[in-house]
Structure formats: C-alpha cells, structure tokens
C-alpha cells in the first residue's frame, strides 16, 4: 500500500469548546488509485489533505507513506518528504509571480541535490500539460486554466509517489475543468496516485473511488 492512514484526527479549539475538523479517518491508497474526496466547504477535507502533506500536524492517528511514518518528524525530514514524495497542487493560484513558467516548474527540483536535467524535465512536463509555448511567460500573462496546468507540471517535477490536489478545478469554467480532469486521468494512468479534494460533484466522474467528508468524518461512496 502506498498511503496508509489510521484514525487520523485533528482537533481545534474555538473559544472554550473544541471540535474535530478531521475525526478518526482511515484511508488506504495504492499506487494506481485516483481518489476523490467530496464535501462541503468547512467539512475538513482540506485539513485532511494538509495533514497528509505534513503541513498540519494531526492531533492523533498514524500516517505512513511507502511504509514510512512521517508524523512527528523534524522540519528538515517532512520538507524533504513533501518535496520528493508528494506533488501538492494548492487551492487557487500558487505560481510565483517573479519566476517564468519554466522556472516555476523547475523550482522544486533545486530544493535538494538531485541528478538529472531539470530544464529538460520541466519542458517535457509543460508539453504533457499542453503549454510548452508558455515556458518563458510570466504567470500574470496566463489564464486561470493555464496557471493550474503550471501547478500540475510543477507538482510532477520530482516524480512524486502521490499527487495531492486541493480543489484543482475551483473557479475554472466547465471546459477547462474537463481538460484538467482528463489530465489527472492521464497522470494516474502513468502510475502516479492521486488524491483530490473537491466540492464539485461533476469531477467525481473521474478516478476510481470517491469518498465523502462530512464534519470531519470520511465515508466511502459508490460511484
């Protein structure tokens, strides 16, 4: 199993009372899975995704990626894990405005010492996501759909084990949404596991399993 999550919980305090944003969640994902989690805003799905990316520390539970427990590790370890094992596509636009599209995609490659040609790889990924002609453009010159493609290419630069996508199609038109979802399917078919959280029901037609998150509780739903 690629990702093994057991009884993962995140508790927050709001005033005098506390509440569970994520409540005892179990989930297993294998290498060829394309999993969608749907839920309303505030249901806890983004918190759940960020715990997997080790951006939020869970209150309790366990999380293993490729058999390695990555919880409670030092920043250096979790950052490396995030950089090399996870491809994270954040909600909204997340490109760096000071860098060209090509440099945005290449950037995570240089965070740690690596063999290989980052430029060649980035150009190849831009080709795959359909925007090779925009390599030298700056983010402000791109449309919403193109920016999302840049984020996807960037998430794939270090050949991660799993792609985490937080609302990847929010604020995109239906045509662009379809393009992006088809791109995810291709990525999944090429051997990268995908875990996507969304509140858009149309997107659950893609992938092989769908979960619903409601008040922090995750339940499987038949497609």
């Amino acid at each position, binding site marked *: 199993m690629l990702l093994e999550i057991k009884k993962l919980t995140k508790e927050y305090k709001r005033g005098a009372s506390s509440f569970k944003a994520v409540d005892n969640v179990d989930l297993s994902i294998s290498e060829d899975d394309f999993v969608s989690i749907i839920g309303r805003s505030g249901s806890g799905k983004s918190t759940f995704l960020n715990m997997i990316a080790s951006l939020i520390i869970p209150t309790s539970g366990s999380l293993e990626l490729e058999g390695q427990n990555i919880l409670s590790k030092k920043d250096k370890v979790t950052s490396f894990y995030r950089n090399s094992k996870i491809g*994270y596509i954040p909600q909204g636009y997340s490109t760096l405005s000071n860098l060209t599209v090509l440099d945005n995609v290449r950037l995570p490659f240089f965070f740690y010492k690596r063999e290989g040609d980052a430029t060649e790889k980035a150009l190849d990924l831009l080709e795959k996501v359909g925007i090779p002609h925009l390599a030298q453009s700056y983010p402000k010159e791109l449309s919403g759909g193109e920016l999302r493609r840049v984020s996807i290419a960037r998430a794939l630069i270090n050949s991660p084990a799993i792609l985490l996508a937080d609302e990847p199609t929010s604020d995109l038109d239906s045509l662009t949404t379809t393009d992006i979802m088809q791109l995810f399917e291709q990525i999944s078919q090429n051997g990268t596991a995908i875990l996507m959280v969304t509140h858009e029901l149309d997107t659950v037609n893609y992938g092989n399993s769908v979960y619903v998150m409601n008040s922090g509780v995750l339940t499987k739903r038949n497609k």
Partner: protein
Amino acid sequence: MKQKSLSDRRLAINNLKRKIFRTTCLGIVVAMLSFTLFGGSILTASLKNGMSSMKQRFGADLMVVPKGYEAQTEGILLKGEPKYFYFDKSVAEEIAKVEGVELVTSQFFLTSLSAACCSTKVQLIGFNPKTDFVIQPWVSKTYSGAIGDGQLIVGSDIVLENNNTLKFYGQSYPIAAQLEKTSTGLDSSVFMNMDTMQKLFAGAKKVGMYFLDEQKPGSSISTVLVKIDKNYDAEIVAKNIRSTVSKVEVVVPQKMISSIAKNLDSLVIYIQIFSIVLWILAAVILGIVFSVTINERKKEFAVLRILGATRKKLIGILLTESLFISITGGIVGTLIASISIFPFSTYIGDKLQLPYIQPHTSTILEILVLSLLLSIVIGPLTSGYSAIKISRAETYITMREGE
C-alpha cells in the same frame, strides 16, 4: 536550452530584480545610513586629527607678543592671516628671568606681498635655530638636515614654483622641505633662520616695504615663545610675565585651543548622535518595510513551504535578499561619501573654521570596514525577525490568508 539552477541566491536576486522600486528604496535607506556613518566618521576623525596636530604644533606653553596684538597672533596661528608686529629684542631676556619660565626663543614675523615681487602672500617666520624648541622638532619629522642660510621650510598649503623655489621681494629661495599638515595657520607660513630673514628684510626694503620705522631687524623680534617649568601653571606664569614685563600681552595657546576644542567637541558629539539616531531610524524603517513586504509575500513563502522548502531555506532566501540590499546600499553610500569628502577636505576645513586633517589610510580603512559592517548588518538584522516569524507560520493558514 541551458538554464541556470535556482539557488537561494538566484531566487533572492530574481526577487529583488522583479521588485526594482522596492529594492531601490530599501537600498537608498541603507546608502543614506552608510553615507552618514562613513562620512560622519571621517569628518569626526579628521577634526580630532586636526585638533591633536594643532595641540602638538603649538609647542610653546606661552606666546608673548606686543600689547594689543593678541587677536592678530590668533589670526596667524589659526587662520594663517599674514601679520607683523615688533618689540625690542631685550624683552626675551626679561621674560627668561621670570619665575616659572624654563626656555625662551624668539621669532621674527614678516609678510610677503601678492605682487610681482613675491610668489604668494604668506606669513614669513624667522626663528633662531640655537634656541628654537618649536619649529625644529616639527621640521625634523620631514627634514633631517639643518636649515641652511637662504633656505626655506614651507607649510603644507604653500604652492611651490616649478623649480622648487619661492620668490620673495625679487629674490628666489630654494625650498629645503615642506612640512606635514597641521591644519593651523602655520600650514600657510614660510619658515627660515634669522640670517635668511635679514636678507629677506633687506630685499623688502629695496622694493619699498618698510616693516620697521627706525629699528633695525637685528634688534627687533615679533614674539617670544615660552616653555614653562613643569612645576608651574601656565596661567600663573603668564600673570608673572604681565606684571614683570611692560607693554606685552601673553597668549596661552592651550586656552585658545580649549575654546576651539569645545566647539569641536560639540560638533563631534552632534555628528555621533546624528549617526546613532540615523542608525536606529534606518533600523526601524527597514524593520517596518521588511515586515510589511514579507507580510505581503506570505503566500509566496507558503507556496515555497508547500513545495518542500525548509524553514531554514525561507530564512536564507529572505536574509540573502536583505544582505544584497545592505551590501549594495552600503557600498553606494560609502562611495558617495568618499567622492563628497576626500576631494574637498581643504574646502570642508575652511568652511568649518576648525582644524581638519584627514586621518591616515589605515584609519580610513578601519572606518570604512566598520561603516560597511554596520550598514551591511542592518539588513539581515532588521529582516531577521520577520523572516523567522514567516518561516514559523502555519503554511496552510498563511496560504489561505494570502489568498
């Protein structure tokens, strides 16, 4: 297509280049700081140097001049205003007998003219090599030989003729040595022994300049310089001279210097306070600007964290950015200060009306290193807190706040 790797340094440079207005403004703040630190320190050191040189050069404890010529004496010593006045040579013998007086030596003053007969209008000072304890120790710093008859020793501000001579009253005199700068009126004075002075006096007479009405130069002197016994107080000996010798005035150079020193101290303190205030002000401004800009860039740093940047890396990028700003601003400010101060040191000294001598190269280098260090350190120092704060922020929350 060969592309450069995206190191922290390159990211920092890229960020600075793409926000050129912000970068320039921050650089200007640091440049202003380094300009003040370096310029102010050089100014302070030059004034202190000038003061110390002045104290050293007024090698006499007392200066006795004819009554009524106290102000003119100060003019000669401080501003190099050419003057002449005389009293009888016997005054020196009378002063030597006064209680508390250890040594006396006399000097003879003459002025040249700004006319065809003379190279320049300066103060001409004749001294007695046998009794002198003021000029010769100073001369020995730049000239080891004895000053021969007909030879001149000139102050640092005197411009020589092409053949290393100076012409006074129709006759050219060779220059034996040029003295190092003292930042006093003596810099624009010319020194010679009494025999040479006699020749010069005769030359003046030939061109119709009668400095003395009836007396011969051999029986007249302009001033008696006094070195007092170390067990006596200068003011008390001065009082003794005034009461013993008639028609003379006693100038106490240290008293004269102390009033200049007082003005100088005020100016130095003002410059130092201004530098400290500016450093604090620059630190506050930079701290606020870095804090605001880092806050504006929350999302950018959250993205970097998401992509796998460690907290240390974020701090590294921010400190590199501030370091580049500080280094550039520091160098620019120091350069501008150098261009504004070094070529105009004489002008600055004249305008300040205070003794002003630029410090030695080693001192200038020390000041340079210290000023650059204080300017360079200010960037990382003031951005450090914001950098650490942003690196510790919860990435997910920061990302949402930055939306």
